């Protein structure tokens, strides 16, 4: 929880929470109903499972599947922390030359979806990839070592998820009270033991929160593991869904994957530990003297440079290479305009719908604490534990059985996005509402204004930035979303994500290049909005 949130939590204890209006309760219940639909429906289907479905699951060697998936998630999380934490420390606390520019550069890979990254890796190092083609003429190289499978999935996921750790830990370091480090030095500890025994443990919540996002991403990921042909849970679910007429085994597998995600969430709670992280009192924030890197300057620059090279410049270069290749060979590069419009339409609709759905929940959490609110809040976080492919499957089942008019329609795609990404809109809105506090609204009411007038003239302008940040985040993730879009889209409807997928899965690298580049370019806009927000008010670590 942020400081502001904690301060208002203290306030909340001293004042009985005001009763939520009926409209607010109804609205938030409606949102929750939509949120729980996929899981409830899956559970229903699983309950109906007969012995033959269970047999099938057992024959699939699900234990191995679980271990493989968890192993990948664990390896990616560890690697992302190992990359993200040093980068965060270097760009916030040291005199690294150009540290502001590095901070932007190393967070940019966030706009590259992992399946685009995987595609770039395959298009560079895979069979008939860029490297092999470049080496073939002079050296006669016909085969390169295979990068698909675990190494490819591991590299792709690490390179494009470490920015979560980087951003959250950077914010954590900036929020750290520098005098606890001084205190350690004055107690006869060197700079290194201070870092190990004080700084690092104090950053535990930010590292845990960043690691959580990475672990969930790796568990949920469908595109990168599929392109790398790594048999992870999501791929098994997809194959089961595509290949079998009976969808019950797919539902069973989905529930198991949700179980894994929940286990990761519990693990993260444990990793936070008992400590609370706070800066007591107001006091004057003193300037933090940057640590001199000295002879470590060059190695640090090499680290930042190689991360930027592999996670940003490299993928972009590969994509541009194939784009030019395609043009030169006169390959029919399909017009990417229609998928681009498709992406923009569904992502914008999802951003608007998510902010609208998040408002009643954020308001309940910020203003009306209590048992009801806590349940609503928990339900609204379902999306975190729900892999895209699982939500998509559930909605496919649900719509084909109960709402055929929704089946393969754009509104269903948007609903799935909202279910998956709602917390991203709730968090900043809740933060904005808490920062604003209830007194401002009461002042407006006391000045004889109606509730409606106060909402429009006081609340709306004050939370606009939070709403914008939430919308930008949902827009960004919706643009990148692949599995739910693949399963739920109307026939013939393409987004940039699905065009990239189609091209990359078929090995038509130049066909995937144009939409990939366009997707990255469009995603850079909301990222810019978010980075500005981080600079202005520091990003909030997702609350427990």
């Amino acid at each position, binding site marked *: 929880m942020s400081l502001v949130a904690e301060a208002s939590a203290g306030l909340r204890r001293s004042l009985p929470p005001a009763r939520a209006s009926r409209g607010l309760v109804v609205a938030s219940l409606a949102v929750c109903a939509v949120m729980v639909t996929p899981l409830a429906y899956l559970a229903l289907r699983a309950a109906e499972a007969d012995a033959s479905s269970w047999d099938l699951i057992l024959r699939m060697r699900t234990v191995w599947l679980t271990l493989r998936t968890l192993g990948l998630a664990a390896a990616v999380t560890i690697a992302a922390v190992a990359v993200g934490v040093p980068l965060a420390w270097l760009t916030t606390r040291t005199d690294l030359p150009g540290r502001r520019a590095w901070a932007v550069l190393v967070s940019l890979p966030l706009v590259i979806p992992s399946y685009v990254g995987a595609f770039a890796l395959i298009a560079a190092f895979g069979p008939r990839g860029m490297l092999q083609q470049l080496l073939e003429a002079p050296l006669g190289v016909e085969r390169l070592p295979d990068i698909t499978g675990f190494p490819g999935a591991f590299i792709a996921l690490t390179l494009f998820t470490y920015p979560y750790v980087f951003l959250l830990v950077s914010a954590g370091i900036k929020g750290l009270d520098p005098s606890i480090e001084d*205190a350690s030095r004055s107690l006869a500890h060197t700079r290194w033991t201070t870092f190990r025994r004080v700084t690092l443990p104090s950053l535990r919540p930010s590292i845990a929160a960043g690691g959580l996002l990475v672990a969930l991403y790796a568990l949920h990921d469908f595109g990168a593991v599929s392109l790398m042909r790594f048999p992870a849970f999501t791929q098994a679910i997809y194959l089961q869904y595509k290949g079998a007429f009976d969808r019950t085994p797919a539902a069973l597998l989905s529930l198991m994957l949700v179980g894994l995600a929940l286990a990761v969430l519990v693990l993260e709670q444990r990793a936070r530990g008992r400590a609370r992280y706070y800066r007591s009192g107001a*006091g004057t924030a003193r300037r933090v003297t940057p640590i001199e890197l000295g002879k470590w300057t060059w190695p640090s620059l090499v680290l930042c440079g190689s991360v930027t090279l592999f996670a940003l410049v490299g993928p972009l270069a590969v994509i541009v290479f194939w784009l030019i290749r395609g043009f030169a060979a006169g390959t029919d590069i399909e017009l990417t305009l229609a998928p681009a419009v498709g992406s923009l339409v569904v992502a914008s609709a999802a951003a608007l719908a998510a902010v609208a759905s998040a408002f009643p929940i954020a308001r309940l959490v910020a203003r009306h604490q209590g048992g009801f609110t806590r349940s609503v809040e928990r339900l609204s976080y379902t999306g975190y534990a729900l892999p895209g492919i699982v939500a998509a499957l559930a909605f496919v089942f649900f719509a084909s059985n109960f709402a055929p008019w929704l089946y393969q329609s754009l509104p269903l795609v948007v609903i799935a996005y909202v279910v998956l990404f709602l917390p991203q809109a709730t968090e900043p809105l809740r933060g904005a509402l808490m920062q604003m506090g209830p007194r401002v609204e009461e002042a407006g009411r006391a000045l004889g204004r109606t509730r409606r007038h106060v909402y429009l003239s006081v609340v709306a302008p004050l939370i606009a930035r939070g709403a914008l940040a939430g919308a930008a985040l949902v827009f960004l993730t919706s643009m990148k979303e692949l599995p739910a879009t693949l399963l739920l889209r109307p026939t013939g409807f393409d987004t940039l994500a699905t065009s990239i997928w189609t091209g990359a899965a078929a090995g038509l690298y130049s066909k995937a290049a144009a939409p990939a580049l366009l997707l990255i370019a469009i995603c850079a806009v909301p990222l810019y909005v978010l980075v500005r927000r981080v600079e202005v008010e520091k990003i909030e670590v997702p609350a427990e």
Partner: protein
Amino acid sequence: MNAAAEGVALRCAGVTKIFDDAVALHGFDLTLRSGTLMALLGPSGCGKTTALRVIAGFEAPAAGEVWVGDRPVAGGGEWVPPEKRRIGMVFQEWALFPHLDVWHNIAFGLDRDDERVTDVIEMMDLNGFERRMPHELSGGQQQRVALGRALAPSPEVVLLDEPFSNLDATLRASVRAEVAQLLHDVKATAIFVTHDQEEALAMADEVAVMVQGRVLQVGSPHEVYGSPSSRRVASLVGEANFLRANVGRGRASTALGAIAAPGVPDGEAEVLVRPEAIELVFDEVGDARIVRTEFYGHDQLVTAQLADGTVVNVRLLGPHPELRVDARVRARLAGQARFFSNGVPV
């Protein structure tokens, strides 16, 4: 603490510290004898905290020297990092390690010396709180943990940066007395920074008055209050009334009447009169008038305008219901007066 009784525990000579935009310390001189509790008193922004940070080794001085005991730690080509200085520090906001409990906070600076931790916890009256996390403690307890943590490794000098500013007023007085007692009991050599003159006078053995990056006067609380070395020090330490005086042949005529001025050169001068050194007597034909009163119960602060228009603050013990606003009074000197010329005592 283990230096000789009358030995010098800490010495700063000509220390200068410049930040990008401002000079924080400008020829800062200070000598601290072992076993002394010194207050570093000055207005906010005068460089007090910077001085502590330079002494502790968190900032490097641009010029000047710092010695701890007989070891040079900064200046003259020497640089000892903070972890090697044997200087303890209590931070303004205590800076307790949020991820460690009370026991481990106190043990942090020790090499597996459980006995010492137990002793310190005993000394700080923290028995039963060993396993509490910092956020589970009250303000006063956090304060004691911070002090205990700094004292545990038996540093040569303890620095306390505005240690009481984080406590609310009701708690402050008792914690202050407690801390002063503790520091005396362990014969600690300590400097605490404060902008509260009452705190400085009440707690310290010695007070160093600091303005704009340098120390103007060091002395016992009685000395700096009773014999300030300059007009500036006089107004920083306690309340001060300055009256115009015309001196001639050992006598000065002031708005409080004629007063003795032995040894003061003839001509214009200023007289420092503390509020408790003026007496007001209710008198319907008096030439002074009361303009404001603040009643505190045990005493009261009365502002009076004298015959020549000078406004003085007067502190009177006990209740004086007759001294209301606009009442006429007679004012006279009932204590010490000190003469200043061009801002320095004469």
